[in-house]
C-alpha cells in the first residue's frame, strides 16, 4: 500500500489549518480509509485538542525521532474511529527538535500502512513549514477571503511550486460568509481563485458550530446537520477522487431565512 501524504498549510496563522486537518482526517476515516494525522506544530500543538485526544498522549513525534519509542507506540487511536490515528507534536520542545529528513522518513514509513497521511503544518515559512512539506506529495492551501491571508497563500503556493515532490496543490477557502459577499463586503470565492489561479478543492462556510466543536474536542464532520461539516465531507470525497459539486453555502438556515429566500426568489422571477 502506498498512501498519499497531504500537507495542510496556509502561511498565515488562524485561518483554520488545524481545524481543516482534524475534519478532513475524520471525514476520510469515516469513508473507510486508514488515516494518520501528523501534527508538526511542535511547541504549539493543538490538533490533539480538536480531536479530544489530549489526555491520551504519552509519546510524541519528538520521542519517535529521538528513539525513545517506536513509531507505532506514538500513534494515538481516535476515540470513535479506529481507522484514524494521531501522531502528536511535543509541547515542551521547539521546531528544531525535528529535521525535514526525519519527518520524511516518518511519512515514508507510515505510507506503507495508511491510505492518507495528513500533515498539519505550522504557520510561517520557516523550519516548521520546511519540515512539514518535506515528505508531502500533495498540498492543500487553506485561505480565507481576506487580503492578508491571500497574500500569504500566494507566497506558500510559490514555495510549493518550487518543491518537486509536491505533485499538486489545491485551494480551500475557509470561513466564507455568503451574506457579506452579497453586500460586497467580502471577496467572493471566484475572486480568490482568480487572484491565486489555483484549483479549488472546497469552500467552507463560516459556522459558529466550529467553535463549539473545537472546545468539545469533536470535529464538526461528526455533526451531520452542520453545513461546514458537510462541506468538509465533500472535500474528503474530492481528495478520494470523486466528482462532487460544490455545496450551496447560501442555504437558508432558519425558518425566517427560508421564508425570506422564498419571497426574494419570487421577486426576482
Amino acid at each position, binding site marked *: 500500500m502506498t498512501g498519499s501524504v497531504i500537507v495542510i498549510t496556509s502561511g498565515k496563522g488562524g485561518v483554520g489549518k488545524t481545524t481543516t486537518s482534524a475534519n478532513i482526517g475524520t471525514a476520510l476515516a469515516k469513508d473507510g480509509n486508514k488515516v494518520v494525522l501528523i501534527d508538526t506544530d511542535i511547541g504549539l500543538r493543538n490538533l490533539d485538542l480538536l480531536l*479530544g485526544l*489530549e*489526555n491520551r498522549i504519552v509519546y510524541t513525534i519528538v520521542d519517535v525521532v529521538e528513539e525513545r519509542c517506536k513509531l507505532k507506540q506514538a500513534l494515538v487511536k481516535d476515540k470513535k474511529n479506529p481507522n484514524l490515528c494521531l501522531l502528536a507534536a511535543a509541547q*515542551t520542545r521547539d521546531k528544531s527538535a525535528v529535521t525535514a529528513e526525519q519527518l520524511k522518513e516518518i511519512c515514508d514509513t507510515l505510507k506503507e500502512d495508511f491510505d492518507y497521511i495528513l500533515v498539519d503544518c505550522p504557520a510561517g515559512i520557516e523550519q516548521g513549514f520546511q519540515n512539514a512539506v518535506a515528505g508531502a506529495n500533495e498540498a492543500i492551501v487553506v485561505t480565507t477571503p481576506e487580503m492578508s491571508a491571500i497574500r500569504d497563500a500566494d507566497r506558500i503556493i510559490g514555495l510549493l511550486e518550487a518543491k518537486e515532490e509536491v505533485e499538486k496543490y489545491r485551494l480551500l477557502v475557509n470561513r466564507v460568509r455568503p451574506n457579506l459577499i452579497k453586500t460586497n463586503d467580502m471577496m467572493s470565492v471566484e475572486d480568490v481563485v482568480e487572484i491565486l489561479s489555483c484549483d479549488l478543492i472546497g469552500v467552507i462556510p463560516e459556522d459558529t458550530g466550529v467553535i463549539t466543536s473545537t*472546545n468539545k474536542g469533536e470535529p464538526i464532520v461528526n455533526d451531520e446537520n452542520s453545513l461546514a461539516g458537510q462541506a468538509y465531507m465533500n472535500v474528503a470525497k474530492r481528495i478520494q477522487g470523486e466528482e462532487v459539486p460544490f455545496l450551496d453555502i447560501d442555504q437558508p438556515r432558519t425558518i425566517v431565512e427560508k421564508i425570506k429566500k422564498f419571497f426574494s426568489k419570487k421577486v426576482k422571477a
Partner: protein
Amino acid sequence: MNNELFVIDLTGCTNTGEIITSVSAAFEVPDSRERKIGLKLSDITLNQAQILSIQSLIASYASELDFVETLNESTKNICENMGIRVQTPQYVEKHEPNYEQIGFEIAPKDDNSNAQSNFEAQPQELKGNGLPSDIADMGGNNISDSLGNGFEEFQPIDFNEDGKQIMETYKKAYDEDEEDKQTWEEVDYYAPPTDEPVVVDSKQTIYVNQTLRSGQVLEFDGNVVIIGDCHPGSEIKATGDITVWGVLGSIAHAGMKGNRDAKIRALKMNAVQLRIANCYSRRPDGTNIPYIIKSSVFTPEEARIVDDSIVLFKIN
C-alpha cells in the same frame, strides 16, 4: 537598576530543575535584587522555553539577564537568537564547586575523595583560613549539600579576580617561602573533573512560586511544591511527591524513578494525565475541557497507587 554584575555559577547543574533551584537560592541573599545577572552554564542543552523560564524567574526578582556563559553549541545558538549576550567560558573543563576546590587544594593532591569528605566532616577547620565564614558554615550543612553545586551562589565570586584573591590569602597563610609562591601560581585554580556522580538527597524539596505555563517542564530529583496553577501543556516530573497549591491541569509524574509510594496532591485536580512510578491514568473523556476551570471552590485531592492503579482520595 544596580549596575553591579552578579554572576551565578550553574556549572554543576545537570537539569533545569537544579538550575531553577540554584537561581532562586542565589536571590535569597539580601541586596541581590535589581542587578544584572550573568549565568555560567555547563555543557547542558537548554531549549528556548527553558531559557525563557529562567529569564522570567530572574525578571521576577527585578533583575535582568545580562549574559550567558556556556560550552554547549545549541544553547549558545538559541541564546544568540533570543538576543542574549553569550560569552565563551574562560575555563575549559568542568570543575568542582568552590568550597570543594579549596578543600581539595589543602589536602594531598593524590587523594581527592578523602579531601572532600574531610572537608565536609570538619567545616570549622577551614573557618580560620581566610574563607568567608558563611561558606565554611554551609559546607557542613546538609541543606546546602543537597542544593549541590548551586551552593556557591551564596557568595557570588568572579572567578578571575576573587579567585585569585582567595589564593593570595592562602599564600599568606601557608606559604611565606618564595619558591612555594610560584607553585601556587602554577596550580590550576579549578580542580580536575571527576566522574563521580553528584549524590542528591532525594528527600529534598523544591518550592516553585509561579504558574507553570504550557510548554514549561519542571523536572526535579526530589519533591516538588508548586504555589500556583499548572496549566495544560506543562509537565511536572519528580522522583518524589508533587504538591500543587492551585489547579493541577497538566501532566504530573511523581515517583519518576520507580517510587510507588509517591503521591500527587492538588487543591483542584484537573490533570490531563497522572503518572506515579510506572502507573498511568488519564482524565475521563467526558470532562475533557480544554481550558482550566477556574473555581473558587477547591476540592483538595490526593492521588496514590492502590493495587496497580492510581486512585484519587479527598483530603479533608
